[in-house]
């Protein structure tokens, strides 16, 4: 047990070093991309093309295969950023700061997708593009938080300083995530309660639920690929004056 733990620890420490991570990322990027494309496309094609239509909403409900995974991912990315922020604040790990920096635009993007697709879905089912309901409003606030984090980081010249400033914001903003998660239960609102719950069985028939699960999985795979992709650029641009970058990246 102790042995396993120390191996994990060593692996984590090794991954925390930018050159090591860059080498790992470059070699595994094609694999990550392949996996992401397969699962993502499988889920979307299954969901959009082959799952049965809904008895009440008809085919429009298929937006769920885009909307729900993006919303789940948007919240997960924020939690992920807050955790890296905490790590970067306490242990000053360099890679944690870079992680926040490359995850923030992805989080903002997925929040935007969730908002836009939700708005389209709302237009057809509720009859309005937008309502000021607790779920929607708190998701919009989350988008602003992502924007604040991106804005603050880009305004600070010194990148290590920027990392620490941004981790403060990331940690502060994490309180918004449980509010979004719980808003549907606390305030009875227009937005329907979560389809996904860990505690009870899904209130969705299996041949619609399974493609949704695959979609969520596919979106997570895609996120891992996109994060690795972004992190490579981040590492090279921050360490471009180091000798290992000159050797590996520029090949001299």
């Amino acid at each position, binding site marked *: 047990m102790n042995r396993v733990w120390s191996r994990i620890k060593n692996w984590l420490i090794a991954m925390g070093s930018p050159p090591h991570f860059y080498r790992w990322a470059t070699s595994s990027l094609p694999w990550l991309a392949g996996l992401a494309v397969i699962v993502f496309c499988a889920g979307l094609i299954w969901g959009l093309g082959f799952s049965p239509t809904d008895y009440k909403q008809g085919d429009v409900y298929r937006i769920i295969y885009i909307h729900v995974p993006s919303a789940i991912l948007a919240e997960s990315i924020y939690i992920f950023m807050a955790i890296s922020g905490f790590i970067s604040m306490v242990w000053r790990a360099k890679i944690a700061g870079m992680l926040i920096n490359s995850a923030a635009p992805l989080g903002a993007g997925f929040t935007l997708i969730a908002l836009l697709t939700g708005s389209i879905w709302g237009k057809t089912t509720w009859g309005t593009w937008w309502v000021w309901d607790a779920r929607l409003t708190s998701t919009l606030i989350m988008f602003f938080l992502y924007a604040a984090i991106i804005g603050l980081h880009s305004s600070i010249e010194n990148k290590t300083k920027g990392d620490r400033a941004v981790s403060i914001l990331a940690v*502060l903003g994490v309180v918004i995530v449980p509010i979004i998660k719980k808003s549907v239960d606390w305030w009875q609102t227009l937005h329907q309660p979560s389809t996904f719950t860990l505690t009870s069985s899904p209130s969705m028939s299996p041949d619609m639920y399974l493609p949704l699960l695959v979609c969520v999985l596919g979106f997570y795979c895609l996120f891992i690929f996109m994060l690795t992709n972004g992190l490579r650029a981040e590492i090279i641009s921050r360490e471009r004056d180091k000798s290992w970058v000159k050797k590996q990246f520029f090949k001299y």
Partner: protein
Amino acid sequence: MTNRDSTLDWFMLVLRRDLTLSFRRSATYITPLIFFLIVVTFFPLALGPSQSLLSSMAAGIIWISALLSSLLAVEGIFSEDFRDGTLDQYFVSSEPVFVLIFAKVLCHWLVCGAPIILASVLSSVFLYLPSGVLFALIISLLLGTLFMSLLGALGAALSLGRSAILSAIIVLPFSIPTLLMGTAIMSAAINQQDYSGFISIMGAMLAIGIPGLCLLTVEAILLNYE
């Protein structure tokens, strides 16, 4: 620094020093007041002087103006002390710095928040706010401006030496829960419903926010010493 001095003594010392300094300079408490009154005046000019329209929007207008003016006022809270080295003294003292930072924020709230609340009573007449909800307005603004001062201090620390608009953009998204709670109190009061639940939630936000935000502010100030 002797061991006899407790942290509370230091807290009072910082509070008294800051209060004296800000009373000596009248701009610190007059500027946010004037800003508040000007912003409030804009609304009847832009929306038209219709009494029913204004009275239905009065609570929101007053809340937004108070939020913006207390946020703008807190902008320079650390810049002077950072320049003349007072902040350095906080860090070399053996006292917990976040307590001293809270003293500064508290002083700021006393000096800027109080005039804004007085002015909001005045502007509630301008905007035809129903007079029965004045108590709710004052209570909600008291709690709300304190939270805004805390948030504004964090923004000021993060953007020390940078543009003021940056600190506003950082802090504004985080201030939305306060705004929502404040306006929820007001709409409950206008509809003659029980609003004590919302006040408890605002209190809870402050209970977490006072130590939490002060600690984060200390982290943010430390950034400027690297």
